[in-house]
């Protein structure tokens, strides 16, 4: 159950997100992955975002209707992308927040993190192994002599 988006907005958002991050091999598209639910939660928490997303999503729907007499989700990917590029320049605040939050929701998703070949876990408490590195190389730096200015 969406917190803020209407049913129509939920469907529309999923279609949009599938174009922001399309599927690629093991990586699902952002809309299919359910990033829309994450986005809904973010938007629901901010009066400013409610306003800009209501306006921005309406702009996408109206462009689809006026240019193609169709709903956005019924359009071919190229036509969808063209509309999104228009909205990106006309509704900049909406669109940059849409992209930002899509990336946020997508790249903290367990399925995506595992597709990246990583363990789906936060950095702590396990941390990461790290090579100490080639400390012998510093002898060459020393051999080049004093580097600071004498005063």
């Amino acid at each position, binding site marked *: 159950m969406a917190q803020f988006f209407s049913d129509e907005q939920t469907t529309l958002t999923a279609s949009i997100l599938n174009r922001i991050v399309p599927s690629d091999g093991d990586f699902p598209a952002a809309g299919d992955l359910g990033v829309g639910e994450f986005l809904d939660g973010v938007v629901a928490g901010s009066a400013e975002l409610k306003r800009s997303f209501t306006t921005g999503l309406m702009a996408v729907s109206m462009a689809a209707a006026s240019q193609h007499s169709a709903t956005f989700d019924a359009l071919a990917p190229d036509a969808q992308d063209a509309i999104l590029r228009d909205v990106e320049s006309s509704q900049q605040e909406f669109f940059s927040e849409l*992209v930002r939050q899509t990336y946020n929701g997508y790249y903290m998703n367990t399925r995506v993190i595992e597709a990246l070949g990583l363990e789906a876990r*936060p950095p702590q408490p396990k941390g990461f192994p790290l090579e100490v*590195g080639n400390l012998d190389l510093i002898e060459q730096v020393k051999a080049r002599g004093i580097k600071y200015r004498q005063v």
Partner: protein
Amino acid sequence: MAGSRDEVDVLVIGAGASGAAFTWSLAKDGFDVLCLEQGGWMDPSAYTTTHDDWELHRQTDFSPDPNVRGLDVDYPVNNQDSPIAPLMYNAVGGSTIHWSAHFPRFHPSDFRVRTLDGVADDWPINYEQLEPFFDLNDSIMGVSGITGDPAYPPKSPRQTPPIPFGKVGDTMAAGFEKLGWHWWPSDSAIISAPFDGRGACNNCGPCDIGCTRRAKASTDINYWPKAIAAGAKLEISARVREITLNPDGTARGAIFYDADGNVQEQRAKNVVLGCNGIGTPRLLLNSASAMHPDGLSNSSGLVGKNLMFHPYSIVSGIFDEDMESYAGPNGCSIISQEFYETDPSRGFVRGYAFQIARGAGPVTTAQGGMGAGPIPWGGNHRASFDRLFGRNAVIAVIGEDLPELHNQVTIDPELTDSDGIPAPKVTYTMSDNSIKLMAHGMARGEEVMTAAGAIDVQINPLLRRGGWHLLGTARMGNDPANSVVDSLGRSHDVKNLFIIDGSVFVTAGAVNPTPTIQAVALHIADQFKQNS
């Protein structure tokens, strides 16, 4: 009516890098010290590095930008007239809570820029005087590194071995070697082995959202427990509004809002400001009175002037192999000071350093990290991401900006904090010298990235969210007409008022300032004790 409390010998305002060091130094020798801090205690076990949504916190409630965090303990900063946004944290520990703990010292030449290069002013103190305090500070903070760096006079043994290079450090070191340029394992205030009851770093990456292992030094976990054990008092959620004066013109104490929002006056024989290069001038300017109509301790007119940030340019290299660059302390691996000292043939004075930083987690990578913006959406998105993630290394070019009167902190006419105290505004532009210097640094950064084997190099010429270093706004000097405090940190105008934070810096050097801020604070504390 203000509540009144018992007078203390020394009142320190601000519990960050400088306030902690100063308070500890006095408390361990038996002085009666109270510190007021507007923030609260952090709980290291609660830092979000253990949360699944850890990467989101640096965009929201753990943003380095107080305007983004917008917590009640923060104060807003009007940054509209500055291409660099000031960053800070407000808590016991101050900005050491969210810093990356890169810990290079100033150089001897940094204290003599007028004599050597004919610009700015010399400091009234020098490297030699600060050297014992650099060493003392290292022994409390805990520094990993290795001695023998030819870019510095010899240093005392580091507390633990260097932070592991990882593939990023190894690859970049090889690039510097190819060009015959200076580089060295960073001095990092992050312990690589257990030290002083703290756990070793396990290379988790995001130092900027707080260290659950207490491997990264922050003054809430090192200086403060020692200071409190020695008898220092620390009051949190205590936000100072103004410094008050006695009829004879000496400081009487401070008026502050306590944890319950009540106005209190704390009287003191001496008042010490450690509120950073924005908070300190803000407090002095907010303490204007009939005796000091332009702000307290401002007979020189220099309170708030000469703000220095260190401009940062970001040179990102992409490599054709997995470098696991998200692993390892994100700000610490190796440094280069090949272009640190003045070379007149370059067409500018002073210089810059390279700080080699690592990549980031998946979310931050998609958002563009410290680059110019997020990676593209659409059909190329996934390929763009995979090309970058784990495969990038970052050179942060940190340049020395010179003190200039028009770069300044003033009081915003409208903005206030949650207690209604007027908030600061910063006004800042980069000088011709700084612009030339940074252009040189970007070109050399690209050169070494390519030498290291990067297949693509991208440059963000000026990092907007890069105002970590807040310096110069109440500078020290021997001439009261040309400085705010003397070489002992004592106000020229108000004899029992001291400033111990980055505000007193005469010049900025081209390295992260915290070790030098703390060494200066310990030097001022030492002189204070000797003169008491």
